[in-house]
């Protein structure tokens, strides 16, 4: 328990590094490490959404490529991000771009799989009646399939977001100093610094999860929400 309080203290107060020569800890430093962490995670998640959601909608709408969409998830998780970074090193060096690419590849599978599944589970009768009303393909996607698939899509984004925020801790091994720095450099930050950074990363992941959960509820079509409430009571 004492370790825990030491770690909390590290977050709020600056002190001399155990190795000497540097000042570590305090809100200022935590923020300095958190800002690149947020930038990296945000950029990766944004790019992953921009790729995976349209692709998933299209594949789901056409009812094709299910094998790809579903198995992408398993393959994506099988390749470690550090291995990807080492692989990309040969082409784009280390740094923000390399890390973003690695994290994008980590984030795509859950979003893609969920989007595809979300579209496929839309009631075929609903789609048929939309077509019967004279909607075109793109209209069906935008006004019927996407809204109905939203809860699942958000589920995918939440999974990816937590993965990305947690994995961004490896960034100091490839050119960007994030909250992973105190976790990797225990000699400089001490045990309390390592635990403090882990706590901040965990809080960040929880906060992301909560924020996206709120966004998900806001984005769920009213019709679906009513149905849920009825189902509960």
């Amino acid at each position, binding site marked *: 328990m004492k370790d825990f309080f030491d770690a909390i203290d590290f977050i709020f107060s600056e002190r001399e*590094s*155990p*190795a*000497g*020569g*540097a000042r*570590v800890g305090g809100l200022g430093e935590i923020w300095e490490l958190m800002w690149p962490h947020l930038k990296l995670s945000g950029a990766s998640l944004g790019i992953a959404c921009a790729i995976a959601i349209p692709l998933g909608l299209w594949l789901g709408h056409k009812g094709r490529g299910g094998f790809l969409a579903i198995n992408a998830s398993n393959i994506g998780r099988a390749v470690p991000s*550090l291995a990807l970074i*080492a692989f990309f*090193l*040969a082409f784009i*060096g*280390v*740094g923000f771009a390399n890390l973003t690419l690695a994290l994008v590849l980590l984030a795509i599978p859950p979003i893609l799989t969920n989007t595809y599944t979300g579209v496929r589970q839309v009631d075929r009768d609903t789609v048929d009646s939309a077509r019967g009303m004279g909607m075109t393909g793109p209209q069906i996607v935008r006004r019927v399939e996407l809204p109905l698939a939203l809860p699942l899509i958000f589920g995918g984004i939440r999974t990816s977001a937590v993965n990305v925020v947690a994995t961004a801790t490896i960034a*100091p*091994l*490839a*050119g*960007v*100093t994030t909250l992973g*720095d105190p976790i*990797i*450099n225990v*000699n*400089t930050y001490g045990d309390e610094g390592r635990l403090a950074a882990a706590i901040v990363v965990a809080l960040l992941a929880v906060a992301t999860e909560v924020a996206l959960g709120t966004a998900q509820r806001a984005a769920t079509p009213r019709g679906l929400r009513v149905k849920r409430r009825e189902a509960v009571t």
Partner: protein
Amino acid sequence: MRKHRWLMLLALLVAALAVAGCGDDDDDSGDGGTSSSNGVSADQGGIQKNDKNASTKLTIGSKNFTEQKVLGEIYAQALSAAGYDVSTQLNLGDEKTALKALEGGDISAYPEYTGTALLSFFGVTADKLPSDEAQAFDEAKADFAKKNLTALPPTPFVSSNEVGVTKETADKYGLEKISDLKPVAGKLTLYGSPECRQRLDCLLGLQQVYGLKFKKFVPVDLALRHEVLKKGQADVSIVFTTDPQNKREGFVLLDDDKGMFPPYNSTLVVRNDVVDKAGADLQKTVEMVNKGLTDEVMQELNARVDLDKETPEDVAGQYLKESGLVG
């Protein structure tokens, strides 16, 4: 290519033997042990077997990276040649694990770096580390003694941080020592391990001691530090003096003219009870083995394991044979 390598080895051996030949002025402290002076003798070139040692069991440990495993194997095979009953335990994780194993009696000895011992075991901060090799060893030895451990005389090689550049960069800016970087540092990108950023024997020291302001510092995994230099992403990279890539890739290591990097000579740390039981042959053997272990030789041995994919066991055997210690 192969021929070239052998020539290089030959040159190294000649150098090693020359060092060994000049260095036999160590005082002989073989008065407390069980063995007589006809055991190991540096004057006769090779390690000689002493049957009296067969009753002494030794377990040699090491940490879990290449250089340590090679050192562990070298000591194990050399001591075995001197007649001891030797076993090994060569994958003990980090220094804290190794020290625990040593204090608990699971192993009899393992090689540790003077700088690491002072920083990690004895609470010395980086700014207080002595820059003199002998002084660092004396301090570590005194601290180990309090734990009932004996630090045997250290190796000539130093496994410390060093500033590395490619041959082209060195030629372009006329770099020989770290101070030469001063006028050009603003144009250069420095790469180093993540912990380099806040270490006095790394980026902080380069800024404070040498007054260098690099264009940018980029943290990378230890394993990538040579890759980025080779690929031209890094202008300057912090490498270890005994990294095998240094020689193979023709990197130029700049001279630390202000003595900023603390010494990391390797010393075999042995339990006191083992020292008493093993007698004089133990230290003699270790000293004979250490003599040839210069920066260049250690780089080459590491290279054979990391780059040529030979086993530490084989490489250790080659070293002992090539340096004439084991027939």
